[in-house]
Each structure stands twice: as C-alpha cells, then as structure tokens.
C-alpha cells in the first residue's frame, strides 16, 4: 500500500508537537510495510537539505517530495510569508510576500501536480495548512482522502472567536474527506459540534510517544535546587490556547503558601509580553524564570530537573508534553481539557480555569513526594501501551478498512 502524505518538518525543526507526531507515525507506518510519499513545504532559506531521520533500512519505503513554500504550522491567515521571487541584474534577491492563505492555495496547486505524477492508493493530510493540498490531490487523482486533525481553529483561538478563513477551509475540507482522523475524543466532539461533521466519518487515533529510556543528563538549575527550591515547568508555546495566564495565577497562590517554589516557562509566542507583564504585576519576578524556547537536550535536561510539569491548556487536542515529561521521569499536572488525559491515567488533572485547585495540586505534589514518585513509576509502565507503533497499527487497520469499503 502506498500513501501520499502531506506532512510537516520532522524534529529537530523546532515547531512543536506536529512534527514529532508526523515523524513518529510515519516511521512506524513504514515499519508496518506501508510505502510513503512524503510531501512537505521547504523553506528557501533552509541550509542544506531537510534532515530526514529515518532508519536506513526503511528509507527505501519513503520518497520525499518538497514544495517551495514558507508554510509552517501554527500560523494565522493574515501572517505574511516572504519569499525570494527572483534576482535583479545586480544579483540581489527580489523579495515578495504572500499571505498564509495565498500560500495554502499555492501549496494545494503544487500538490495537485504531484498527485498526477505519483502513483498511490490513499491520501493522508496532516493539519489545516495541508488540508487544501489533500483535497486538490483527491480531485486530481480520485483517490480516497484522509484528513488528520491535530488542532482546529477553535483550539488555536481557545474559544469561539475563530479565524473565519481557517474555519471555512476546515469545513470544506472535512466535507470533501472520506475519513477524518482526530487525535482524541475531545477533538472528535469538537469537530462534530463546531463543524457539523458526521460522527460516522471520524476515527480517533490517539498520538503515541517514544518509549525508550532516555540518557540521564547533567541537571540544570542546580543552583536553585541546592537552595532547596522546587521547580515547576511549563513547556509550550505562549499563546492563549495554552493557558499560561492561568498558570501564573496559580503560581501566585502557590508562592503565598510556599515561597520556595520556582516556575520555569520554556517557550515563546504571541502572549509572551502579556505574560511577562502579568508576572510583574503579581510580584512574581523572583519566582518565575523565562527560559526562552528550550529544545532537544536543553529541553530534556529541564524535564529531568523539574519537580512537576504543568500543561494548563484551555483546549488541547492531544498534548505530548506529559508523555515527554514521564519519559524523563517527571510527573505532570494537565488540564481536563486535554486529549492525552483520555489515554494517560498516571497524571494529575485540573480544570484549566480552576486556579485554586491547580495551586492545590502543585502544592500537594511538592508536599507529598510519594505521590509524584508513584505517578512516574506507574506512568512509565502505562506509557509502554502508548507507543507510535500502536498508533500506526491502528492507522494501517483504518487504511485497509477504508479501501475495502470503497472498493466493495
């Protein structure tokens, strides 16, 4: 079976969970014997070639097609993407720009060309920026289309104030798709209620995680730890979707009771300034550390050194952070509004708006180390069932069922 996949840059491209999910799933799909034509946007300023991190023995199963496009996940439609159109007589680049919306359409146009050139059985498009590409490929090839929803406009907006052009693309693409994969029941309910999708069309494929034991790294923030400080970590984009403002409110309540707690914020985003101001207004400057965006080893060191990781998302389709934290031996507190909670029991949970309870659970985790120790030890066992391998097996089953259904 051959799948035309519209996906995203793999790690270490620093784009958050989407690339991680694309890599994990595609890697395991090839292990299951699926051939993948992987189409991804290539930025012009990429130095060298996009790193493609598949094991050697399976790389023959993956063909990479790149489209020159500045698309990245997590964009708003009015963002401008600049590109080099041509070079003038002095050899200087002529810079032009397109909006994301134009870029998405450009990407779709290129996709339909690729769809005519390649031979495949099924189309699988990840996230809204590639939905139109998926639809275009379907029109060009008449092959079945699967859209894979990792986040919706409602998650990004953390409410109903959504970007109407994204919402329109979502609705039209959902209508054109043969099947829609979502990363949680949370997201399934959302697209049924908000986009009017027929529940029969939707399949839940929970994300997986890496289950190997990572190397023990040199601890970070050791100065603070030596002073007996406890470290609470937030890791993620600083946007309204992620609930960082509630995290800061909870921090205030925690510090009232226990001034020995330090909150580390790893990430960046359109709310960064607002959060910095909020920290100042709440007199928390000496208890909150802005670490910038931490990736790879720096991020892993922080996971390993933290006493608790908090993911206070307002609307989180899945949320890989608590699984990554567990892998590094640290317990998490997540919001009930997170899809990962459907498959992970060894985690503390709270409603994102319940600041008192968030603070209570942070304090309890600090007071009773037996609690976090057990969450980690039992969580590591539970994680073994949540591998990308399991997710890929489910996807293969769904591919087969869909093809059977359409051909009989």
């Amino acid at each position, binding site marked *: 079976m051959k799948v035309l996949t519209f996906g995203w840059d793999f790690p270490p491209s620093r784009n958050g969970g989407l690339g991680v999910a694309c890599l994990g799933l595609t890697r395991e799909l090839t292990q299951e014997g699926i051939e993948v034509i992987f189409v991804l946007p290539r930025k012009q300023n990429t130095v060298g070639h996009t790193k493609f991190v598949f094991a050697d023995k399976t790389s023959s199963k993956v063909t990479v097609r790149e489209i020159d496009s500045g698309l990245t996940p997590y964009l708003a439609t009015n963002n401008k993407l600049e590109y080099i159109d041509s070079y003038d007589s002095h050899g200087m680049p002529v810079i032009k720009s397109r909006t994301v919306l134009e870029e998405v359409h450009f990407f779709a146009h290129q996709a339909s060309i690729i769809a005519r050139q390649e031979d495949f059985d099924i189309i699988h498009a990840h996230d809204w920026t590639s939905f139109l590409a998926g639809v275009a490929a379907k029109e060009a090839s008449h092959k079945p289309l699967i859209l894979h929803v990792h986040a919706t406009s409602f998650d990004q907006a953390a409410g109903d104030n959504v970007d109407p052009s994204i919402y329109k693309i979502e609705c039209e693409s959902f209508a054109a798709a043969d099947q829609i994969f979502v990363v949680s029941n949370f997201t399934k309910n959302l697209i049924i209620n908000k986009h009017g999708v027929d529940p029969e069309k939707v399949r839940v494929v929970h994300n997986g995680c890496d289950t190997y034991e990572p190397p023990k790294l040199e601890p970070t923030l050791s100065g603070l730890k030596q002073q007996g400080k406890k470290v609470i970590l937030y890791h993620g984009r600083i946007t309204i979707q992620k609930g960082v403002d509630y995290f800061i409110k909870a921090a205030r309540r925690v510090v009232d009771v226990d001034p020995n707690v330090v909150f580390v914020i790893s990430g960046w985003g359109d709310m960064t300034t607002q959060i910095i101001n909020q920290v100042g207004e709440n007199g928390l400057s000496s208890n909150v550390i802005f670490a910038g965006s931490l990736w790879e080893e720096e991020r892993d060191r922080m996971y390993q050194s933290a006493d608790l990781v908090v993911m206070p998302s307002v609307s989180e389709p899945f949320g890989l952070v608590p699984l990554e934290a567990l892998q590094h031996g640290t317990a998490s507190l997540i919001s009930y509004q997170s899809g990962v909670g459907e498959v992970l*029991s060894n985690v503390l949970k709270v409603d994102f708006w319940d600041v*008192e309870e968030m603070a*209570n659970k942070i304090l*309890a985790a600090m*007071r*009773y180390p*037996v*609690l976090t120790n057990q*969450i980690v030890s*039992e969580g590591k066992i539970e994680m073994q069932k949540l591998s990308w391998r399991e997710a890929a097996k489910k996807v293969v089953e769904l591919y087969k069922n869909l093809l059977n259904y359409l051909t009989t």
Partner: protein
Amino acid sequence: MLSICPYFHVHQPFRIKKYRVFDIGNDNEYFNDGSDTDLNNRRIIEKVANKSYRPTNKILQELLDEHPDFRFALSFSGTVLDQFEAYAPDVLESFQRLVATGRVEILADTYHHSLAFFYSVPEFERQVTQHRKKIEKLFGVTPKVFRNTELSYRNDLAKWCEDNGYIGIMAEGWEKYLGWRSPNFVYQPPGCSKIKVLLKNYKLSDDVAFRFSNQGWASWPLSAETYADWIHSHHGGAETINLFMDYETFGEHQWEDTGIFNFLRALPKILTSRSDTVFRTPTETIKSYDSVGEIDVPDILTWADTDRDLTAWTGNDIQKDAIKSIYSMEEKVIKTKNKALIENWRKLQTSDHFYYMCTKWSEDGDVHAYFSPYQSPYDAYIAFMNALSDLQLRVSHALEIKESEATKRALKKEQTAKTEVEEIVPETKPVPVTPPSIWQKISLSVKKWSGSFINFIKAKRKN
C-alpha cells in the same frame, strides 16, 4: 438438612471533601461537603436510602412477616449508623424493627470500618468495643459472631475473637486456603477450640451481588427459580450455603429495573418449598453443625478483587504512605484525650479512603471506579493527606496546650507546697464547678430515647 445463611453488610464511609492545602490549619471539617457531587455524604445517604435502604427494608419486613422461618444477619459499620441518625432516622427505625423480630442477627464489627487489626490491636479493640456499645444502645442486642472490615481475616484474628468470647467469625471461602474442600461446611481455625468459621460461598453470593444485571453473563436474566435450583443442587454435599454480600446490592449496585427486588421477594418461598432447606442466622448455623476440619489462613484474606488480599487498600505506594501516616499518629492522638480529635482520626481510618487510592486500573479498575467519588486515585490521596496534615497540626497543638497546662499545674503545686511551709493556715479557694458538657447532655438524652424505643418495640412484639 441444608442451611441458608445470608448476611448483608450495611456501610457508608464519611467521604473526605475536596480538602485543599490552603485549608490545612484553617478548616477542621473534613467530611462536610455540601456540593452536588458524590463527596456529599448527606446526599449519598439520601440517595441510597431511596434507592436501596427504604424499599429493601420494606421487602425484608414483609418477608419476615410472611415467612416465620425466614432469617438473616446484618452487619453495620458505626459510620453508617451515625449517618442514619443524622440524615435518615426513619431508615434506622426500619432496621430496628427488623432486628426486633428476633430473627435478624447483628454481627460484631469495627466501628469505623477500619483495618486496625492489622496495624494496631489496641486501637482495633477500642473500635470493636465502641461498635458493640452502639449496637447495644440502638438495637438492644449484643453480637456474638464477628465479621471484620471487608471480610478481612487471618488466623490470629480468629484467635482474638475466641479469646474475647465470640462463637463464630466470617471469612471468604477462597480456594487458596480451602484447597479441594467446600466452603459449604463449618470449619475451625488452628489453635482454637471453640470458635467456628463460616465461609462465604463466593460463587453463589457474587451471582447476585456482581453478575445479576450483567447482560453478557450466560445465566442472565437470573430467576429466583434458577437460583434456588443452584442452591438446592448442593443437597447431600453441603451443610450451609453462606451468602454474604453488600446490603446495597439491593437497589443500589443492582438497580430496581434489573428485577433485583422481585428476585429478593420471591426467593425465600421458593427456597423453603423444599422442607429440608432452612434459613439460619450465623449463630444458629454455628450451633447446628460441628466443625469438619481446620482452615489455616496465615496471610490476610479478604473478599475484594481477584487477589482476595489487602492489595485493594495497601497495594501501591500512596496507599501504603497514607495508611502508615494515619496509624503512626496513634500514640499522640490518644494522648490528647480529645474526643473530637480521636473521632476525626478514626473516621480517617475507614478503609474506603484507601480503596479510592487504588491504581489497579485494569483488572478490577471498573469496580474501584464505580465506588470512588473522586475523579482519580491521586485526588483521593491528596484530599486524605491534606486532611491528615490538618489533624496532625491540631494534635500537636492540643498536646502543646496539655503540656503547658501540666507545667503550669506542676509549678502551682510547687508554689502551694512552698506556701504551705511558709504559712500555717493557707487560704481556701472555692473549687470551680464544671457544668456537664453539651456532648454529655446529648449522649444522656440519646440513651434515654433509645432505651424507651427498645422498650416500645419489645412491648409491640409481646402484643
């Protein structure tokens, strides 16, 4: 002759509210949740009273009235009796009427539905005494047969019961200890000479308690006739069928629409339609049969989960930590001699708190989740440990006050001794008279009331 010996266990814990770290030192009401969640103890009692206690007691009363040979036993935790008194006194009265027939036996138990025997025998003994007094006060009877929390059992518990005058004790009829032998006979614990053990026939008991409404079960729907056939099929190879289950099976675990009430209503008549089948209370069963052999249970046996041990309460680290923390307070709490503190401490010993912390997600997870009012075992642990932290603070505070008072008294004594030497005629001071506390008053009036109620019932029976 085949005996049928049913006993129904009536219990509700005092569930701990969402008690937060911020409440430590500020709020000593751990059990007064007023929300519309299952943490609200009054709400649960009212709900279960309507679904189970009231309709079931009505049926049991009718059965006792219609069938002079119908008999069974009840066991109550003190915590459920306290809550009946506070939230549903009519339910308590209906139980008192059942017991007043003389055909309903009450079993001995710990007051607080605790696992104290395995952690502190002196504390266990205090709770058993407290329970006995409560039963005597409310029902006018003294239990002779013992059942421990969650049917937990071990050889040394049986020995303790024998040494303390009990004639029988209940346990799970579990193959691990029975081997090839049947639970449908009376046994004797090792090292004991008088006390006998009644073993639960878990298959027949769980057919009603767990499987009755399971539509995936081959025998669903179970009729009273079929069930009676199963029991009658033991004739010739058994002496007593011991059916032990939660009282709340009727109407609460198995809802009315499963047909459980009709099943209960029909069963006694069908069972006793064979004249060689009789209902017997545990005491009657024990007196009717000799022991057929010894049952040796060196490790803790309970009626819970597929493991039948204590792992549902003490299987993981948070449970072990919680239970260790509560029993390690014993010496200090008792030393305060403060009734409210001791009572709070005991309510926190109720085994349900530890059951809610169980993380056997897979095999028995559904049963645990069904019984838990918390969204996660970790939430249960946090509420418990926070409440316990507050209690620890209050205990230390009470002891500090006690100590400083003792020091003051000692100082005073010293001073008076000195003055006695110096002055020949010391000034006499009037001794302050302490009025009886509010609690003494209440307990006096309760005693009076319950005494008169029992007399009233007795008078009614004579008529």
